[in-house]
């Protein structure tokens, strides 16, 4: 089908402003939060109803046109990167909160609703939606489901998969599946878990029922500075070993501390090699008990300076630095590249040492922020895209970090997804058998491979070639991927 025919077909049931195809109109959709990868789609569609999406999918299925879903486009792995011959399906206009049931503690929302908008809408009932990615003012709940997004509180409150109850999903054929329920479990296979984190590869999420939990009575934060990263790592293990599950436990390294302190003046100790932020929340009694124990553990673990937030303003000020790590990176460097490996916590210090070595080898600085409680590392590699070759060196450096995470018994992505970005590292993390099973799962939902082709799971062919030509990895990156 020609572009004109496709557009005409789409316009037969969508208003003209909901079908974009002129280059200047397509431009805002050419990338997600990972702007190093750009591609214009054939067409962008902006439906407002599930019915319209059904028609779009039926048309795409009939014409074998690839479909890439897009929420808010804040993804960091190129998951919503358009397909050159495909339709980019934006869910942004489906942004209504359909129903809130405060007694049963759930909210039914459309996929384009922003993460934070849910918590804001239910705040009056003393409830909130727990997963809080740093991008929560912008990212959509549909995108959160597709990436299984986390946040700084997920050690205690879980990821997206732990906080959703039900999904409405459209298959590529336009058939509606109701997955999960208002109950705490459902009949048959756990397709709710399978859909979560599936990166728009299995179906289009058109409705999400999320679980709401009570806003804690109180939250308090201990900030501890260490003169040695190993000591900070041990402190994390000691807190957990003492039977405490903190609401949040974050670590920053020296270069991060300096970058954010310069920017924000949060009161961080500039002599520290690492700073730990450890939050307790719950009833006033629970928090008082936990904070006292955390303080003692930090002391025993050799912290050089410990402060406990005395009021809400101070707690937020301590957090502000951690939350501003990305913008701070943007201030100290023209560009930065955010990685997302997860490792067993015990290997933290070794992996940080390894990153430091690579940093020197590649001549690129790297800031480390870290969801220390659950072992999720976010190294931010600082670079300048205008320097020839620097982006390529950065990507290679990043790839090495991910491989190090795999060798430490971890994974290449804790919460940002594989998307387009980490497709090559999938070949290192998984063997042929597992990759074949992933393709089989995809085929159970989408045998023609029309949903988000080329993302998340590499073809075996690609992995074989990659194995044969390790050094030329950079060059191969932009080659159009065969579909499966």
């Amino acid at each position, binding site marked *: 089908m020609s572009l004109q025919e496709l557009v005409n077909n789409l316009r037969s049931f969508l208003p003209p402003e909901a079908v974009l195809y002129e280059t200047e109109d397509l431009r805002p959709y050419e990338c997600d939060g990972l702007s190093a990868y750009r591609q214009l789609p054939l067409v962008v569609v902006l439906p407002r109803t599930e019915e319209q999406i059904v028609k779009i999918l039926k048309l795409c299925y009939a014409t074998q046109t690839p479909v890439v879903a897009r929420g808010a486009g804040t993804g960091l792995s190129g998951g919503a990167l358009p397909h050159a011959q495909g339709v980019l399906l934006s869910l942004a206009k489906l942004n209504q909160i359909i129903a809130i049931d405060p007694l049963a503690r759930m909210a039914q929302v459309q996929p384009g609703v922003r993460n934070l908008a849910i918590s804001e809408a239910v705040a009056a009932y003393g409830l909130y939606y727990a997963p809080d990615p740093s991008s929560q003012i912008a990212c959509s709940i549909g995108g959160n489901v597709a990436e299984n997004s986390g946040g700084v509180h997920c050690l205690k409150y879980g990821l997206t*998969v732990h906080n959703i109850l039900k999904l409405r999903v459209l298959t590529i054929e336009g058939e509606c599946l109701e997955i999960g329920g208002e109950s705490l479990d459902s009949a048959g296979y756990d397709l709710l878990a399978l859909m979560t984190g599936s990166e728009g590869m299995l179906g289009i999420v058109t409705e999400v029922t999320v679980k709401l939990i009570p806003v804690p009575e109180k939250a308090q934060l201990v900030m501890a500075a260490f003169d040695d990263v190993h000591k900070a790592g041990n402190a994390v293990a*000691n807190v957990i070993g003492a039977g405490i599950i903190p609401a949040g436990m974050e670590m920053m390294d020296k270069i991060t501390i300096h970058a954010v302190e310069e920017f924000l003046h949060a009161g961080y100790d500039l002599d520290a090699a690492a700073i730990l932020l450890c939050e307790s929340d719950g009833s006033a009694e629970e928090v008082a008990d936990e904070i006292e124990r955390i303080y003692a553990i930090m002391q025993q673990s050799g912290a050089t300076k410990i402060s406990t937030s005395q009021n809400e303003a101070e707690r937020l000020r301590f957090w502000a630095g951690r939350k501003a790590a990305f913008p701070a990176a943007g201030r100290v460097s023209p560009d930065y590249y955010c990685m997302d490996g997860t490792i067993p916590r015990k290997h933290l210090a070794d992996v940080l040492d390894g990153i430091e070595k690579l940093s020197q080898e590649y001549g690129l600085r790297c800031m480390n922020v870290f969801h220390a409680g659950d072992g999720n590392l976010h190294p931010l590699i600082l670079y300048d895209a205008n320097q020839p070759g620097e982006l390529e060196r950065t990507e290679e450096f990043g790839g090495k970090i991910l491989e190090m995470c795999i060798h430490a*018994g971890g994974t290449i992505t804790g919460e940002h997804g594989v998307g387009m970005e980490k497709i090559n590292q999938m070949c290192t993390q998984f063997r042929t058998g597992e990759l074949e099973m992933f393709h089989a799962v995809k085929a159970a939902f989408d045998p023609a491979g029309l949903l988000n082709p080329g993302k998340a799971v590499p073809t075996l062919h690609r992995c074989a070639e990659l194995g044969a030509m390790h050094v030329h990895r950079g060059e191969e990156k932009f080659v159009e991927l065969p579909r499966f």
Partner: protein
Amino acid sequence: MQAIIDQYKATIRAAAEQKTPLQIRGGGTKDFYGNSVVAQSNTLLDATAYSGIIDYEPTELVITARAGTRLADLEAALNQKGQMLAFEPPHFGAAATLGGCIAAGLSGPRRAAAGSVRDFVLGVRLLNGKGEALSFGGQVMKNVAGYDVSRLMVGAMGTLGMLLEVSLKVLPKPSAEITLLMQMDEAAAIEKMNQWAGKPLPISATCFRSGELFLRLSGAESAVRAAHVKLGGEELSEGEIFWKSIREQTHGFFQSADSLWRLSINPATPPLTLPGEQLIEWNGGLRWLLGDEKLDVVTIRKTAKDAGGHATLFRSNEPGISVFHPLDPGMMRIHCALKEKFDSFGILNPGRLYPEM
């Protein structure tokens, strides 16, 4: 240990070649659960041989064990370090294994507060229907590389693969735990349980039966005491024994000879007007129903569906009724497609979940 895996592989391959179904069995304590797999020709695949804890580091909050490990042994190891399986799996007998626990996907009283079996699964190693050993997920808390095949195994009743090893997130045991008892009617209890679940209170389990509401509070001693003052109620001295009787279904309610239905529904659903005795857990989200002959399947299933959930015939004395809630055609198609991908020859526990697969 590799020799055991090789034996399993050989058994599966032989079954695949001859297209003869296998019945995977752990401790066999949940034989009563699921559709009966009638065929006499089924070969029994004994999953208990591959057992033992592989790795347990309390400060990582992760335990990895072979599927044949007895739940009791697993929980004893955790207990030694002051940790627990937070989903409180029912054992239904001393022989219960980790593999059976994951495959049956059943969670106990703490589920509404702490999460379910699948919430704590981090990774699995399994044999698919061709006898290929595959690993999914891992031993870390956050992992979105590839589809979440590990959690897909939970509740699949062994129809997608034979579990070899499982990694689970574990949690510290609360330092204090008390049980409160209050008298009230069913409607009030359902409303109260839901209201309290929306407040920052350390309630870790709820159970309502014949005008009595049992609440368990867990956490720091001071927090539990403060919550008791807020909530009122009489403190029960034998709380632990009571919750064990609910978890293991040794409580008098479960000793009936009648069929036992499990309705998992929207927790705020007002009292169900079905004939038969009921016991309520999970803030109202789980309603156990003892069925006499007046109960018909269609009404029960419709009631559960209208309440946003599903009904399982947990224990039955009437053959011929599908144990698990029927699926819509679209969902059944996906289920059959997945089954076909993991078990192309249809030899792993066929029919145990649904007759079609």
